[in-house]
């Protein structure tokens, strides 16, 4: 076991009756890195996270935190990790301060009052400390959840869609805080989200799940490189019919946005010079070219629609 591996998951599987929700999932997270766990709804992300935090028992497979078998040393492992989710809340009937005191006791946090105040200051929630949790807005709840998830100075945090239901401004602020945490504390994070821009922004590695299996595992950049098709937008100063005829000849999928703009989709990158050459040769006067490179969203769509990449 390498010392810089904080979480190692090996052949993790979960069977619910006849349904195989998670199948032979294997990955590991290095110290200080952020791993994105992606997949369409029902791909097995939530079940995987639930097994990783010990609230659902795996059918088979091994989970190891910091070299310790999770099954055997559950309390030890849980004392060194934490969890933040948009879906798990704190106790709504009591105040933020009271909730954080309870969790400080559960995690044996030394000097907990000082710690709570420091973290609340960091996440800018000090003014809500004495408000009951159920009166907080979604953004405030998310930040309070993040305070809770840092109470025990975890070495790894599992975050299940922490920015879900947040407006773009609050989501951006939350992401900035997560980036700051990673940098300042050398924190490892397992991050799930449906927002591909977020994943591209904060993740070093991405695991794509499809029907419970790992269908791709790489850096966000390498994953986007695997998609060879690109989208090209051309603005031309010629007859529309001429452009159409040329594009039909090279067998492209295209749609005219107006009389002078055409959007050519699913173009093999290698064919781009050829298309431009043929259009020029047919006396099409191209005034602007915009090539839209594939991003993680395209990877996501390809995996969810075709099952692989």
């Amino acid at each position, binding site marked *: 076991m390498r010392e810089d591996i904080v979480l190692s998951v090996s052949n993790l599987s979960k069977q619910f009756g006849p349904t195989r929700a998670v199948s032979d999932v294997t990955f590991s997270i290095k110290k200080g890195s952020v791993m994105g766990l992606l997949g369409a709804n029902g791909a097995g992300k939530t079940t995987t996270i639930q097994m990783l935090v010990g609230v659902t028992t795996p059918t088979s497979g091994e989970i190891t935190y910091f070299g310790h078998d999770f099954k055997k040393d559950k309390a030890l492992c849980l004392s060194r990790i934490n969890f933040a989710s948009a879906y*798990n*809340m704190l106790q*709504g009937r*009591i105040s933020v301060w009271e909730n954080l005191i*309870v969790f400080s*006791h559960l*995690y*044996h946090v030394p000097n907990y009052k000082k710690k709570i105040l420091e973290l609340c200051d960091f996440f800018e929630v000090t003014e809500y400390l004495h408000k009951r949790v159920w009166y907080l807005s979604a953004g405030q709840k998310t930040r309070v959840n993040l305070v809770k998830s840092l109470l025990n100075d975890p070495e790894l945090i599992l975050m299940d869609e922490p920015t879900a239901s947040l407006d773009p401004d609050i989501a951006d602020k939350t992401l900035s805080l997560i980036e700051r945490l990673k940098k300042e504390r050398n924190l490892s994070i397992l991050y799930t989200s449906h927002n591909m821009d977020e994943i591209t922004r904060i993740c070093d590695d991405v695991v794509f799940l499809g029907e419970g299996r790992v269908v791709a595992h790489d850096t966000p950049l390498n994953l986007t490189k695997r998609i060879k098709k690109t989208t090209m937008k051309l603005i031309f100063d010629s007859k529309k019919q001429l452009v159409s005829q040329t594009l039909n000849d090279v067998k492209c999928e295209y749609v005219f946005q107006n009389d002078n703009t055409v959007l050519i989709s699913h173009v093999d990158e290698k064919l781009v010079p050829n298309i431009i050459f043929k259009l020029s040769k047919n006396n099409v006067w191209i005034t602007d070219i915009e090539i839209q490179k594939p991003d993680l969203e395209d990877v996501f769509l390809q995996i969810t629609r075709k099952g692989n990449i």
Partner: protein
Amino acid sequence: MIRRIFGLLVQEWYISKRSLEVIMDTIWYSTLSVVVFGFVAKYISSQNQPGIGEMLLSGMIWWEFLRINQYSLTLNPMWNIWSRNFCNMFISPLSKTEYLVAQFIVGFLKSSIVFIINLLVVRLVFNTTFLQNYSVLTFIGFISILALFAWSMGLVIMGIIFLYGTRIQALAWGFIAVVQPLVAVFFPVSVMPLWLQTISYLFPVTYLFEINRLLIVGFTYPASYMAIAALLSVLYFIISLYIFKHFFAASQLSGQFAKNDEG
């Protein structure tokens, strides 16, 4: 271990002091029932039926000690499930044992507070008490056996709720009502049909309510009653711990445990 148990006790204090429902369900309804039974007892006693009224009233006070203890045990997890905070707690290093010990303490404390309030009400309003015929050992026996039985019921109900989800949450406060007629709280076992008497004597607390009636009219009670009640209550507790452990594990295996927090 102690700090985590303390953390759960602190949480219970925070919830209880802010929740009118908790105060109503435990102290208010319980004390109101005792007051009503107090008047019924007073009326019956005035009709040349000495002892009967006191039997009813003391039965009610002991029953409330049992009910509140069980109710507290099964309702406490619900507060956290309803807030979607239950899994959060078990994602911390909190163990099942720590969780249960905290719930036992909370249940015992709440039922003891209600018991003391009810005794005071009976003393102040009806100028009576039924504990004068109880020895210290008998009193400790009653408290311990009733608490063990309440925890046993609570453990099984909690386990069933974890396993099948909040759609059967009504069991948390409704199940114990089924037990009440079977354990002969307000009437002697002898008035029941024979086949029901057999069932009744399978419950440890039936013996206690029989003992209570004997003590009220100044009789001594057979030591075997207390011994059987103690043995049965320990047996119930061990079996219920096993059932809870099994249901808890089954709930984590079926995925229901995590789903409970999804509402």
